[in-house]
């Protein structure tokens, strides 16, 4: 698959301070998570991709377009939802989204039609004639999403999309991101502090720390790889049970009090565990997959 975002030694400086240092990565996932602590350079990376910040060294390509040479063409392909409040208070949502559509190049009438469509799509259909200044925080987030997708971008950049949302609104935002991902017409970059949001929506994750890439992983692959870790809590003769599992290719370690940790071989089916336990009249009190969560990955990356 052709990379969506390709960074080749990208560095960005503000005066004497280097904000991004020699970033090299090729991201091609449908949804890409951008993680990092405050001051890691996430927002600067987004602003660089959008052409707001000049590059001091290296290069960056989006869909094969150089962001320095073809900024205008690139911006036509990108939809951006900023982190902070960004709207025009004395405009109705439909006027605002329509204007943003027109600025992206949509003709007058098409922009109006698209504005209605996307406002209904994000769930602001009933409130689309209200002034944006009267919107709640959650509604403003949705209006920002609407303006970002009105022109049908190929790359959607969402900077903290669930910022300040209550749980139902957050769920709604996550659902919208998943739905847009499934349409297959756009790639999405999600920049968030909330690991759960990234874990729920992203296929790839890039972790930044102090302007450097400290970890890149394909979450789908990690999930598949870590599926083999299992923790068991048993009552009965766990030594014999562990021996039987070892005979089937599992790596078992007893941690005492009937607890077992094991790594399952690639082709191993979980029903074998239940079968062996039943044959030995062994009670299984607890069974859970132990896999690295994104939080584990993030914390490891931060410690590196």
């Amino acid at each position, binding site marked *: 698959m052709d990379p969506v975002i390709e960074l080749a030694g990208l560095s960005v400086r503000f005066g004497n301070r280097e904000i991004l240092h020699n970033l090299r990565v090729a991201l091609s996932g449908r949804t890409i998570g951008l993680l990092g602590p405050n001051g890691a350079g996430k927002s600067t990376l987004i*602003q660089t991709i*959008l052409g*707001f910040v000049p590059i001091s060294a290296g290069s960056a390509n989006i869909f094969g377009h150089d962001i320095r040479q073809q900024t*205008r*063409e690139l*911006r*036509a392909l*990108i939809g*951006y939802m*900023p982190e*902070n*409040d*960004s*709207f*025009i*208070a*004395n*405009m109705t949502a439909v*006027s605002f989204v329509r*204007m*943003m559509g*027109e*600025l*992206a*190049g*949509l*003709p007058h009438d*098409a922009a109006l*039609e*698209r504005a*209605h*469509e*996307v406002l*209904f*799509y994000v769930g602001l*259909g009933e409130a689309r004639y209200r002034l944006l200044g009267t919107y709640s925080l959650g509604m403003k987030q949705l209006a920002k999403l609407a*303006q970002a*997708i*009105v*022109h*049908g971008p190929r790359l959607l950049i969402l900077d903290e999309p669930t910022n300040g949302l209550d749980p139902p609104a957050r769920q709604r935002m996550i659902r919208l991101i998943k*739905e*847009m991902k499934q*349409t297959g*017409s*756009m790639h999405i970059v999600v920049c968030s502090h909330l690991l759960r949001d990234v874990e729920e929506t992203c296929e790839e994750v890039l972790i930044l720390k102090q302007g450097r890439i400290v970890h890149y992983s394909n979450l789908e692959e990690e999930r598949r790889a870590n599926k083999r870790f299992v923790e068991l809590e048993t009552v009965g003769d766990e030594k014999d049970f562990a021996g039987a599992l070892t005979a089937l290719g599992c790596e078992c370690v007893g941690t005492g009090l009937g607890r077992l940790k094991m790594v399952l071989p690639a082709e191993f089916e979980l029903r074998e565990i239940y079968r062996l336990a039943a044959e030995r009249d062994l009670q299984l009190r607890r069974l859970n997959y132990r896999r690295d969560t994104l939080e584990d990955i993030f914390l490891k990356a931060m410690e590196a």
Partner: protein
Amino acid sequence: MAVYKRTYAAYQGSFTPAWSRFLILPRYSFARLWQSRFLVMFFMACFFYPLGCVGYIYLANNLSILSSFGIPEPLGNVLKVQPSLFLYFCWVQAAFTYLLTAFVGPSLISPDLVNGAMPLYLCRPFSRTEYIAGKMSVLVFLLSLVTWVPGLILFVIQASLAGWEWTKANLWIAGSLFIGFTVWILMLSLLALALSAWIKWKIAAGGLVLGVFFAGAGFGTALNSVMRTQYGTLLNLTEVMFTIWSKLFRWPEDTGISVEASWICVGVVCATCLWLLVRRVRAFEVVK
């Protein structure tokens, strides 16, 4: 796609040419501005003086009408259309545009900065230059409608009534009207936009548009008195413009500063305002 269908679909239609997009901003700005009843009334009031001038020109070229009202002919002969009529027209309309700018100008950029809307404009295929051009065109259109457009209409009316000989001899008035007002509009628009960009509070920005002229005049006069010079007058933008207009309309008036110095002063003011605008109109705010 129908409105009720709530699934996301990418836009597949055509796009407008890039050069025309800066005109989107004035369209939305005008839609918002005309919602103000005060602005509509004030805008209408800006045409009272040009209408009076039309009446004056008509009467000056049709003295027989005055005679029919019993006004003696020698009194009617006082009515003459001279270049000074157009200079006075410039003065009166400039005063109106000054107030109009103080009312309209601050609402152009400051709301976008206050609400953090700059990234939304500039993340699209839309440059800072287009943004400034779009915002400036609001003032340029509006001020043109009350300055050189009616000025040239007055000239055409006078030309049609006075005949070809008058037109040939006074064609320079049309050029002076256009150039004089264009410079005034340019300076006023840039000043208003720069203040709107730097002062987020609309009322304060509007007050400052007015204040720049009054404070400049006061400071200039003080400087002239203290330093025993005439160059303090360059801080008085009203006098600077009057010097330029006097020269354009061949009016013998000495303001104490040369026309060249006045042109340089206008150039410096415009360049400074443009620099201030470019520094402020950015996708993100630099916090030091």
